[in-house]
């Protein structure tokens, strides 16, 4: 591990309690810990850890613009573009900025230096302080498809000389990869249901593909069956702890309470869970 542990909270299935776990971990770690809200499509951590925004920055991605006085319509840029973001139509090509990944290839392959890049806004990164917790939140602009650039921007704002809890988006595809890649360990939050188990398997596969060690937290324990426990036993995956399925918890979270503030009796689970995650990360690096 290089510096302080950076640990991601992910899930596969949505709504299993990632933000509940991430905000509670940040709360028990307290002063100086960073909470990176990388669920940039639906960032929720600040609904629970309220604080004042101290810094706000725009996130932009490079997109090409064409100097029509130089372009001779050769179409090389459009042929090169892997994302169909440029269409050669005779004369200067058309640019579709929403399809552009910002690789910069078109500018480089243009034989007449007729292209340059401009910045297209895709979201915002805000840093807030909530009772000593530094919350760095990314928010994708509504209507923008590609979340990874905003996630990368959140992570670029994180300091390596302080611990970080990374609240990842649901799923297993590129936004999740962008959020968890480079993390020292991942806690996978699931629930003991067929959907929870099915999506946990996918999430475990994802962490194995990325070679990041993982452990499991079972939320709403008692609501389903014990197949998640059995799966973790067979796969040799540590179950850090469980949180019970109680309506009073659901009601407190619905109002915007941090779990360990409303129910301090759960603090010790998160404290122990964090220590175990750090141990798993350290062991993996050794």
């Amino acid at each position: 591990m290089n510096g302080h542990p950076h640990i991601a909270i992910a899930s596969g299935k949505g709504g299993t309690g990632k933000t509940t776990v991430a905000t509670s971990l940040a709360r028990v770690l307290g002063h100086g810990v960073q909470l990176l809200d990388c669920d940039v499509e639906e960032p929720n951590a600040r609904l629970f850890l309220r604080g004042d925004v101290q810094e706000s920055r725009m996130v932009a991605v490079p997109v090409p613009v064409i100097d029509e006085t130089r372009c001779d319509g050769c179409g090389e840029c459009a042929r090169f573009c892997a994302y169909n973001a440029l269409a050669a139509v005779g004369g200067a090509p058309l640019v579709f900025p929403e399809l552009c990944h910002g690789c910069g290839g078109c500018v480089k392959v243009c034989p007449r230096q007729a292209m340059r890049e401009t910045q297209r806004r895709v979201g915002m990164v805000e840093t807030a302080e909530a009772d000593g917790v530094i919350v760095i939140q990314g928010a994708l602009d509504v209507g923008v498809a590609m979340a990874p650039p905003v996630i990368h921007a959140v992570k670029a704002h994180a300091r390596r000389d302080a611990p970080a809890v990374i609240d990842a988006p649901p799923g297993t595809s590129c936004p999740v990869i962008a959020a968890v890649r480079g993390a020292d360990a991942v806690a996978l939050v699931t629930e003991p249901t067929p959907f929870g188990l099915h999506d946990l398997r996918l999430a475990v596969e994802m962490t194995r593909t990325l070679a990041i060690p993982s452990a499991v937290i079972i939320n709403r324990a008692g609501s389903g069956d014990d197949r998640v426990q059995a799966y973790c036993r067979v796969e040799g995956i540590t179950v850090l702890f469980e949180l019970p399925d109680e309506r009073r918890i659901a009601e407190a979270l619905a109002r915007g309470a941090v779990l360990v503030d409303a129910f301090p009796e759960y603090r010790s689970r998160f404290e122990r869970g964090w220590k175990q995650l750090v141990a798993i990360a350290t062991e993996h690096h050794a």
Partner: protein
Amino acid sequence: MRELVVISGKGGTGKTSITASFAVLARGAVMADCDVDAADLHLLLQPRVRECHAFFSGRLAAIRKADCIACGACLAHCRFGAVSMNGPGAGEAVFTIDPAACEGCGVCARFCPVKAIDLSERRCGEWRVSETRCGTMVHAQLAAGAGNSGKLVSLVRDQARRIAGERGAPLVLADGPPGIGCPVIASLAGASLALIVTEPSVSGEHDLLRVLALARHFALPAAVCVNKWDVNPEMTERIERAASAAGARIGGRIRYDRAFTAAQLDARAVVEADAPAAEDIRRVWHALDAMEIRSELARRH
């Protein structure tokens, strides 16, 4: 043909359980599971897979070690942080490409002075056409850590529409992904109506407003349904007011009911069980009548 897409913004609000119930109630719709990251509809509809196809999309760069002269041009050109140099100082530099970060743009291959980088087609998952007790279903599974989920969603929807067209099915019923990004945008394009399922919590409210803004951005009619409404009746009222103000119709409320989990454990839809929430779901389905989904069904039958 109409197309109803069930989305949510926030994950875990009950999209899949409600979609499966609609599939039972619709009798004869073609289902499309557009949550290709974490597809779960098949767990309730128990499909018999009829066709299975690989999904290739995008490219992946790889360096041929034998031909690499370790000049570092690829590292300098890559904007995605996919190229790394191992073992600096310890003998020769070795460059490698991380498949998890490579976006297949091809810049490294183009600018490699000795053409030591290959681009190969990338297998990103598979998609299937299956038969279920409620009708035909198109579903998919993105490979772990793969990209291009939006393209796979579009493919699933296109196939579902094709099948519905061939059979004269009046409705395509799509189970959408959470969020507001690329797979959600791909789920919404050209749909008739989005049913947004939320829950009465601060997260549910926040995420609903963002996904409603997205529906508005694409000029798509939206209806809102609050699941587990009785967990916080005040918040439910507030959400419905906000949704109406944002131009959405109100699709109804579904009470908190453990029948959702029980039905999942039995691999059934909630409406196939004798549960209070099943009544609520039927009411929501009937409310969609006014939104022409069911009238279209009635007209065709």
